């Protein structure tokens, strides 16, 4: 009986993946959707990577990190600096020439992406060593501050980053599979990690650090590990972000960007990967769709005064408040989406209809 259900589930997963692959290929080959849809979906895939990795740190390990925007900036700039074709460098760095040590170096995209992730992880380790050694209370402030400092550094280090002008002409990816492929690999990596002994150690620290330590778990080592892995994937997300937009500048990585990811993990459920994936798509698409809030709205000849620039972000921040005050578990709490859950949900829906 149980085996039968398991077989059934595997079949369902395969079917789901085929549907997903076909849809993505159709989108990719431009049979359906337009540039805008493709762009938003790619963005959602990138945000999924970042928010899932943030959930690893915040939801599974219980550390309050707010450094995602900063780690993304590191990944994005690494990709930008090393993948821009050599011949266009001079035209980009036209105010201050690029540092000669970097001017001649070109790295293929996959290697630059990986390097960006590794650099982000390295920086995370450097922040983590002083902050995670004791109570991790100050991690939030330290990471928020880091996000700001990295922007200051990138604005000032003109020979490396081109300062406030940013870097243009970053090669774009020919297919959506790059974004979705990396997303699937990243999420799989984190899911395997969470279900491993290391993931259980992370959860133990979240549940009760004193007891975890008494069970022989080295708190510092595991906190730094989780934090650095989270930063690695934020860096990867940032690298993809740079190649999606084709341009980077320090203003893109304002620390409030991190709050979008916070909204995603709270909506999805702190401690739920599937919830975070769903929420990432909802929030990313929502942020795009709701852009009309920022434009004046005229209904039946009456201009509604509340619709103007900035209204969308007011709604989003209010949403974060409402979620944390009234729906603290988000969509899935600490559970993962399962077929049983989907069946129950449809069952309830059917009962409602009757």
């Amino acid at each position, binding site marked *: 009986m149980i085996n039968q259900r398991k077989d059934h589930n595997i079949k369902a997963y395969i079917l789901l993946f085929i549907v997903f692959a076909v849809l993505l290929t159709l989108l990719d080959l431009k049979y359906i959707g337009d540039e805008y849809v493709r762009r938003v979906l790619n963005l959602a895939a990138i945000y999924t990577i970042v928010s899932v990795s943030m959930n690893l740190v915040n939801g599974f390990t219980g550390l309050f990190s707010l450094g995602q925007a900063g780690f993304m900036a590191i990944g994005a700039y690494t990709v930008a600096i090393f993948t821009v074709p050599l011949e266009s460098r001079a035209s980009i760095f036209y105010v201050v020439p690029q540092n000669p040590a970097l001017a001649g170096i070109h790295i293929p995209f996959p290697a630059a992406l990986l390097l960006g992730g590794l650099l982000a992880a390295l920086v995370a380790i450097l922040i983590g060593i002083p902050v995670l050694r004791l109570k991790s209370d100050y991690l939030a*402030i330290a990471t928020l501050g880091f996000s*700001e400092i990295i922007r*200051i550094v990138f604005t000032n280090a003109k020979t490396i980053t081109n300062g406030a002008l940013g870097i243009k002409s970053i090669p774009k990816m020919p297919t959506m599979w790059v974004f979705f492929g990396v997303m699937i690999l990243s999420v799989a990596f984190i899911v395997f990690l969470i279900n491993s002994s290391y993931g259980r150690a992370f959860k133990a620290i979240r549940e009760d650090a004193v007891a975890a330590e008494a069970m022989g778990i080295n708190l510092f080592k595991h906190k730094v590990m989780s934090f650095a892995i989270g930063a690695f994937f934020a860096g990867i997300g940032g690298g993809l972000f740079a190649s999606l937009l084709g341009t980077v500048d320090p203003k893109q990585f304002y620390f409030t960007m991190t709050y979008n990811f*916070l909204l995603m993990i709270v909506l999805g459920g702190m401690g739920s990967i599937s919830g975070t994936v769903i929420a990432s798509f909802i929030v990313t698409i929502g942020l795009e769709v709701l852009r009309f809030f920022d434009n004046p709205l005229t209904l039946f000849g009456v201009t509604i005064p509340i619709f103007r620039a900035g209204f969308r*972000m*007011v709604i989003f921040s209010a949403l*974060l408040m409402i979620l944390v005050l009234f729906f603290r578990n988000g969509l899935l709490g600490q559970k993962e989406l399962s077929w049983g859950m989907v069946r129950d949900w449809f069952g309830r829906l059917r009962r409602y209809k009757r």
Partner: protein
Amino acid sequence: MVLVSFETFMQQLANGISIGSLYALIAIGYTMVYGILRLINFAHGDIFMMAAYFMIFSMVSFRLPWYVSIIIVIAFTVLLGVIIEKVAYRPLRNAPRMSIMISAIGVSFLLENLATYLFTGVPKGFPDIAFLTKAIRIGNISLTVATLLTPIITIILLYVVLFITNKTKIGMAMRASSVDFETARLMGININRVISTTFIIGSGLAAIGAVLWGSKYPSIYPLVGVMPGLKCFIAAVLGGIGNTTGAVLGGFILGMAEIMLVTFLPALTGYRDAIAFVILIVVLLVKPTGLLGEKVTDKV
């Protein structure tokens, strides 16, 4: 490293003390809230920002004189602080600590976005309070009244806060609550009143800080509270979180460090905002309890 004249040095010293005492005013709010609730009140910097906007509206839109405006601004800011605690923090007091921290972030984000939406992102000029911005010359040094007055006001307010926490009944309740929240409650202390009082004092000081800040840096925008907010929390950590005198000391040191960097290493002026975080890292490595903080042992 550059050599500076004595006059420049004295001028910058006064600036450092002045900016430091502004940090100190804001840091007191952080340290008191953290002492009792173990909560980093991320919204504190934004409460400060709202106070600055209140001042602009009171003086520019309603044309009220500055001394009336200050009273109104303090009243509104205190009200805002108390409402935030009631609406966003109180319901989560028994929730996991992560939830209340997220709520604090949410309030901060909401206030910033609300300010952008209502007042636009374009910086607004802070009204000129002639009395405060008047320049005084002492020898070759020229200072505004605000620069001279800020440290004096800070010291006076520190004494008021210390008096409240050490000599009054509510102050005793506050100290008891910061040692052990649950026991204090069992001893019949009205914990809600204690927390409200903490937010009243913290927000009131932030309002005064905002008025003095605006007189010094008369450009107010929705994110104006972010950096002072982060820095002042660090000042509180530097002084020993939970310790009021420590917060003031931390604020002074931080302000001085910033101004001295700008004075002696002008090439690094762009990194002025980074100093606070370097200090944070050093404090956590060398003396995590801060300058005046006591070692707390977690109960197992």
